[in-house]
């Protein structure tokens, strides 16, 4: 599935004797058993079943259908909302993380980190309510904007459109950016900027030659994680739209609930597998960059 799994070949070397196996692996067995049964097994089975026809024979038809309408636009829209919401949230989130982590007092940093944690996990109906209350037709912000002469509902805007969904997604994407980008800021050492200044570098020089190059990989990594988060979000899209925007997570949910029927019983599984593949393209580089930057971030 991923390069990570291949490393699992290592313990077989220690099979020479039972005792060395016990010493090397046994204490980790409970954890491995839980991960194996409740995670690797369902994912493995998902992949296996996605290649099964209705008659339980091997087929690629499920995957062929995932590339046709309406599933094709589902993927396109999901990728678009992932990319757009990540692109819009990344820079403001990074800047906010910088000012909070580098200038905020301890108590403030803690409060922000707790709040970000809660907000990054908001979604679904509660989040939909908040935005209906603010930007719905009767919303508070809608009224204020109208008072100042901007009727956002004059055109075709509604929260159930792509643009509406995008705005709502920012509500959890921005805090997520603050969370994932903060460790990189924390690891920027004050000594470096002082050393640069002692050597005659201006503030701008420091940022161009040291600060930005150091933070850039973490920035890209955070962007990738945000993409994956926006791409796979289900609860919020489910609460806001009534099937008027094709999004893969909703299509899978519909197939799973039996609300939508398809000629192919295992189509939902194939859609799930394609989602995993797309998400892996973002998350695996994220993990790799994280691991690399963890080296200099260690103090």
């Amino acid at each position, binding site marked *: 599935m991923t390069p990570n799994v291949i490393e699992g070949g290592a313990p077989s070397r220690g099979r020479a004797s039972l005792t060395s196996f016990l010493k090397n692996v046994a204490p980790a067995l409970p*954890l491995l058993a839980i991960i194996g049964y409740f995670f690797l097994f369902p*994912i493995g089975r*998902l992949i296996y*079943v996605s290649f099964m026809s209705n008659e339980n024979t091997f087929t690629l038809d499920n995957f062929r259908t995932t590339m046709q309408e309406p599933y094709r636009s589902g993927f396109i829209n999901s990728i678009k909302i992932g990319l757009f919401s990540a692109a819009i949230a990344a820079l403001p989130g990074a800047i906010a993380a910088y000012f909070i982590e580098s200038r905020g007092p301890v108590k403030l940093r803690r409060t922000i980190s707790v709040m970000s944690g809660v907000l990054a996990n908001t979604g679904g109906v509660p989040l939909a309510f908040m935005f209906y209350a603010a930007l719905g037709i009767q*919303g508070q912000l809608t009224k204020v904007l109208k008072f100042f002469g901007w009727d956002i509902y004059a055109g075709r805007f509604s929260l159930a459109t792509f643009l509406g969904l995008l705005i709502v997604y920012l509500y959890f994407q921005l805090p997520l950016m603050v969370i994932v980008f903060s460790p990189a800021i924390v690891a920027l050492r004050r000594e470096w900027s002082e050393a640069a200044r002692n050597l005659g570098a201006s503030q701008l020089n420091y940022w161009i030659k040291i600060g930005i190059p150091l933070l850039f990989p973490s920035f890209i990594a955070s962007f990738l994680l945000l993409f994956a988060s926006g791409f796979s979000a*289900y609860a919020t899209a489910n609460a806001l739209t009534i099937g008027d925007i094709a999004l893969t997570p909703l299509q899978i949910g519909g197939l799973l609930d039996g609300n939508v029927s398809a000629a192919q019983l295992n189509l939902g599984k194939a859609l799930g597998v394609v989602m995993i593949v797309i998400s892996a393209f973002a998350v695996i580089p994220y993990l790799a960059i994280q691991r690399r930057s963890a080296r200099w971030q260690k103090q």
Partner: protein
Amino acid sequence: MKRKLDLPLTITLSALALFVFIPMLSAFEFSIRTPAKGGYGWDQYLWAIREEEFFYYIIRSGWLAAVTVLITLIVLVPTMTWLHLSKSTIRPFVDGISLLPLVIPVVAFAVGAQISFPEFVQDTVLELPFLYFVLALPYAYRTLDIGLNSIPLKTLTEAARSAGANWWRTIITVIIPVIKSAVVGTVAITFALSLGEYTLTVLLHWDTFPTWVTFVAQENILGAIAISMMSLIIPFLVLTAVTLVSPERSTQGRK
């Protein structure tokens, strides 16, 4: 730390506050409306807590989250401590698969879970804590990893062992107190995630507090908004209490 008014920080915080609080306060304003009488009141909140299901689902979600935390404390914390101490060759492997759930979209995971487990697993709500544990694993794992990397683990363990403590005792009385803030962080993440989990829960057809809110929304929208507000505020208060009570010890080693 200087307490002078810091302009960039003030601007950042104000912008964030607007962004966060405009939707939140708008929803709050709706939740305290009393359409029958006109004006404002706590009617919707009183209505919500008088609903029988309210406490039923709060308790249910609470204990499911507590079981998830328990699995984390009993299985994850000792295993990771052991992995850091021993020179086990499987550590890179465990590292890898612990982060892997990040790759899997929850919807896809839900489909996998639905088609994999035998009936006796699918019939008990106790499958949820294990699945929540998997969802929280990457975050829990990383938080603990940072905590364990920041202490002289080997020295501490050797000291405890030579003073006669066995493995379990070493982990419980020496290691855990030292990495307390990382453990608190891990517990907070796991608890918050389990308490608010919606996608997996609803797709596997279980009812918890977050899915109940969706149901209420169909019959009493203002009441559902009130419940939503509480579902945001309760985890926030719990987490703030947990992190503020925990000792001032930065795992990042920054002073």
